[in-house]
């Protein structure tokens, strides 16, 4: 099996095969915790770390786990790193840990992670798997951030509120008032239906950009003449 190049792996994770916008995996945390940028960033970073570490370990053990037990083994590995991430967040960002709540342990069930373990890490060497984990995790993180920003602006008219939960007191002044203070707040954006609708618009935007890129590229030169065997007429 020919392995994809590093560039290809990067483009796959960030754009072409983005876990949130194309594979539509891991939608549960995507929709549940992206009410604000800080929540999205917290969960996105945790997912990125778990995804990268589990890809590395799965890749190391890829030749020792038999096919029959590979999925339980992968889940055990992912669960280990999820527990680590949870303990780290509990130790260093306790308030954010409380806000994200059940969605940190639920990283175990994030299909994007198990999907990468089975589809990529179990078939490729350690360095490629690590790079795949980083690009997929970053792709997921970026979508979380955009979604979190959209929802925060629409629902509260502000951006980067409570960033001090993640970056300490220095970040308490990062808050930006996007709309004037008497902005009524479009509450539906903060609720799950709003998350679904905005995710739908993001997917549509991605496909629109893809379409524009495709049209901008020069189409392959049409080969003159018919490929069919012809007995009459001139052949170019």
């Amino acid at each position, binding site marked *: 099996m020919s392995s994809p190049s590093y560039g290809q792996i990067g483009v796959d994770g960030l754009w072409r095969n983005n876990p949130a916008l194309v594979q539509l995996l891991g939608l549960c945390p995507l929709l549940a915790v992206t009410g604000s940028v800080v929540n999205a960033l917290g969960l996105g970073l945790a997912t990125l770390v778990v995804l990268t570490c589990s890809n590395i370990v799965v890749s190391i053990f890829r030749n020792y786990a038999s096919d029959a037990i590979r999925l339980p083994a992968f889940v055990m590995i992912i669960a280990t790193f999820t527990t680590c991430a949870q303990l780290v967040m509990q130790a260093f960002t306790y308030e954010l840990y409380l806000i994200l709540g059940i969605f940190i342990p639920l990283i175990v069930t994030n299909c994007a992670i198990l999907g990468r373990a089975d589809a990529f890490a179990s078939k490729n060497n350690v360095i490629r798997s690590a790079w795949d984990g980083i690009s997929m995790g970053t792709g997921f993180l970026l979508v979380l951030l955009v979604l979190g920003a959209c929802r925060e602006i629409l629902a509260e008219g502000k951006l980067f509120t409570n960033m001090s939960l993640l970056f300490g007191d220095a970040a308490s002044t990062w808050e930006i008032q996007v709309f004037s203070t008497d902005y009524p707040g479009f*509450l*539906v954006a903060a609720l799950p239906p709003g998350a679904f609708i905005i995710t739908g618009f993001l997917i549509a935007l991605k496909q629109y950009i893809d379409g524009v890129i495709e049209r901008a590229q020069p189409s392959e030169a049409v080969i003159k003449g018919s490929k069919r065997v012809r007995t009459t007429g001139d052949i170019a």
Partner: protein
Amino acid sequence: MTKPLKSSPHLKSQLTTDQVMRLVIFACIPAALLMYQFFGVGVLINLALAIISAVTAETAIVALRGRSILAALRDNSAILTAVLLGLALPAYCSWWIPVVGSVIAIVIAKQLFGGLGANPFNPAMVGYVVLLISFPVEMSQWIGAREFTDGSPGLDAILSNASIDAWTMATPLDAVRNLQGITYNELVASDPQLSAGIIGSKPFEAINFAFLLGGLYLLKRRIFTWHAPVAMLVSLFVISLLFWSGSGSDTNGSPMFHLFSGATMMGAFFIITDPVSGCTSRRGRLIFGALVGVLVYVIRAWGNYPDAVAFAVLLANLSAPFIDYYTTPRSYGHTSSKIIISSKEDA
């Protein structure tokens, strides 16, 4: 020759979509005029804003979709959606409420699902629900009818976005839900809107009667069948009778109170009769209407929102395909409708 060939000039052709929509809009006029009479010019402003923004949104989204703009505008469906939404909004709400609601109704609830005929949910109700859960304070500020308050806010009050708190009153449904330690009779005695009415509050029962009249006219013109409205009203009557605990402070209101409060009649004749998002078979329409009636009562009695019709309709819309699947009528020559379904799947 651009005229279509007509073989039997003595037969009246069926109404076209735009004619149906126009008739339904006309049937709303009595209720709209009554609402103007009670709540003042704010009702008409809501209607105008809703219609203008709905038509603009329809034009824009249909152009984006690359469809014929004229064909989409000519069927009057955007105007009807806007009229229903505008009548559901509290008068003198901020100007952006009807605008946001119409844009969401047309763009998200209708055109993104594929346009008229392909929308699984009633667009006006989606717009209303999005507004209600997004702006609960704005959306529950119904002003009292003019004759029970000191006049009504003028144009300057709307243009300056001034607080209209001075004119707002609890709607009867809200007042009955939040009976705090007083009996129903004491509430009626203290609330001028309720005491002036025969079975409920004067403005809302009159508006409900106007919608009932408009609905009966549409029924006579055979715009829809009687099944869904009758099923809804009967089921609402029965369930509110079952749970009616007299006029103590724990009352949920009498059956007649529920029939002539809030948006009951508007929902029964103008919303759940929507041929697109409702059921298609007759038995299905009976079940659909009954489901809406029960849900309306459940949400009114034990929910937290000012009225329940929009939520009930959306939940029923969601189950309409399921109901339709199990109520497919038996077609002539077959012993049961099951055969049709299975043979369709085989084909």
